[in-house]
């Protein structure tokens, strides 16, 4: 049996969510790794966009910024933030792949602030391109840590809207119809969203993780389906590719 770390597990599960031949807007950190891994395994024609303006680059190894040299390396076109987000606004970006400090049961993401906005306990970086990608892409995939206070019933601050207050909220807010959170990947499980209630719903547990563990570490009532699958762990091939992508272990660890 292959030996892997939780972060390698997350990267593998995240990469499995991406189909071949679609366009994905990728945020910094683990989303980058997942996108690059998908390209090197089951989705060679996955098209990656980075918000800084990079279209379909051939990323040679892990970028340290979504705007750095490695992101634009051998891209087919270089534009800017507006060029990428306008492409999303006209419906051309299939997936957004984002991280978040807090994610709630409706898939709302907080990456702005903990505590009061104007005198914060912890100041986080803010939206970056996350609100744009999450508002304008068809489906949003979120990566988060599975801890009670990181998956609260309601995020402290909606940086990037998920289903906001539930069914109909996105449309009422004026967001493009047919968009919204699609998957949440944590160190414990893979989750989706219930079509009727727009609430987060368990899909699969990572190998060795119990349902109790997941419930205990979730800050809201997670919808538990009758059938719970087991997430597919990384293959030897996946681990090899992850090493190629991030040889210094910057995200994946050593």
């Amino acid at each position, binding site marked *: 049996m292959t030996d892997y770390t939780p972060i390698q597990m997350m990267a593998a599960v995240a990469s499995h969510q991406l189909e071949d031949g679609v366009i994905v807007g990728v945020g*910094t*950190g683990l989303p980058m790794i997942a996108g690059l891994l998908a390209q090197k395994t089951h989705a060679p024609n996955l098209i990656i966009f980075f*918000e*800084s*303006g*990079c279209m379909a680059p051939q990323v*040679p*190894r*892990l*970028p*340290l*910024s*979504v*705007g*750095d*040299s490695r992101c*634009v*390396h051998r*891209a087919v076109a*270089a*534009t*800017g*933030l*507006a060029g990428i*987000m306008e492409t999303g*606004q006209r419906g051309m970006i299939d997936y957004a792949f984002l991280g978040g400090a807090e994610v709630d049961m409706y898939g709302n993401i907080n990456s*702005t602030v903990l505590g009061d*906005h*104007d*005198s*914060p*306990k*912890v*100041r*986080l*970086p*803010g*939206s*970056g*391109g*996350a*609100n*744009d990608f999450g*508002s*304008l892409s068809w489906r949003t995939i979120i990566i988060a840590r599975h801890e009670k206070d990181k998956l609260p019933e309601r995020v402290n*601050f*909606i*940086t*990037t*809207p998920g289903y*906001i207050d539930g069914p109909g*909220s*996105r449309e*009422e*807010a*004026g*967001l*493009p119809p047919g968009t919204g959170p699609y998957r949440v990947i944590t160190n414990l499980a893979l989750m989706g969203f219930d079509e009727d209630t727009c609430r987060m719903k368990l899909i699969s547990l990572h190998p060795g993780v119990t349902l109790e563990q997941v419930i205990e570490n979730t800050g809201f009532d997670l919808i538990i389906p009758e059938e719970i699958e087991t997430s597919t762990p990384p293959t030897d091939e996946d681990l090899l590719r992850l090493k190629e992508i991030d040889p210094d272990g*910057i*995200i994946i660890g050593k």
Partner: protein
Amino acid sequence: MIEEGHGELLSACTADEIREWNRKYKARGLIDKTATAREAVDRFVKDGAYLAIGGFGHVRISMPMIYEIVRQKVKHLRVSGHTAVHDLDVLIAGDCVDAVDVAYSFAFETRGLSKNGRRAVESGRVKCVEWTNGALSWRIKAAAMGLPFLPARNMLGSDTFNFSAAKTMVCPFTGQKLAALPALMPDVSIIHVHYADRYGNCLVRGTTVKDDDLAKASKRVIVTAERIVPDSFFRDAPERTTIPYFCVDAVIEAPWGSHPCNMPYEYYFDNEHLKDYLKAGANEKDLHAYLDRWVYSVKDFEEYLDLVGIKKLYELRRLEELR
């Protein structure tokens, strides 16, 4: 029903004010605009100015200008944080900043959060208004187009909107709800480019991020360039001009001008330097020691580069070439 965010509009301008400024203060002719960073800060970066920085926070940023702003102790700046990273962080370290239009700020992406930046906000020293990278780009594009606002479909339904100065509006044709983003005309922008001629025509290689629009949107534009080239470079193939000369007020020759940050196609990050910087950010004493060494105790960017050393610079070029 029209909704509005209750954040402060840190830089307000009407479309007519944009027109009047451009009529009065932007030179039309092809005149030599070469200058030094010192002259450019002295002339164009005033206390309390609204500042926007080209590039992507730690990619293609104008360090000669940023260091000079710190060196000249410019105060009370308001800054556009459309992915602000090392640029904003050094200005905060130098106590130059009062407020930020935040899209992405106070962090270094894969390198993690900045203790210096966080401390400034959490202590109340730096005030934040929330936006997104797309929203700030479109606000800048609105000014570049000579419009008072642009409609958009982001920001809606979020606290980002609530803590911004955006509004909602109704589309005159479809009746749908849209976000309305007010034009942003920075008092001054500093943009680092690959090639510029002495009149201010510029080529940016790789992504523009938003710098083509930023140059058009800003009251004053200071360009630092890896290389100064003859104007024939642009005239021979005018489609390659990212920024036309009449947007630009000063041109500064600045090879390695993005160090310690990345300049696509030229040199990669000085990872060691950035690591030391972030470590120094843990407390004010170390941060001041850093600034003393790299900013206050050197006269200009050339002296700074001497301190970095040519060996290191060539190493960064090799790092870039290997990708």
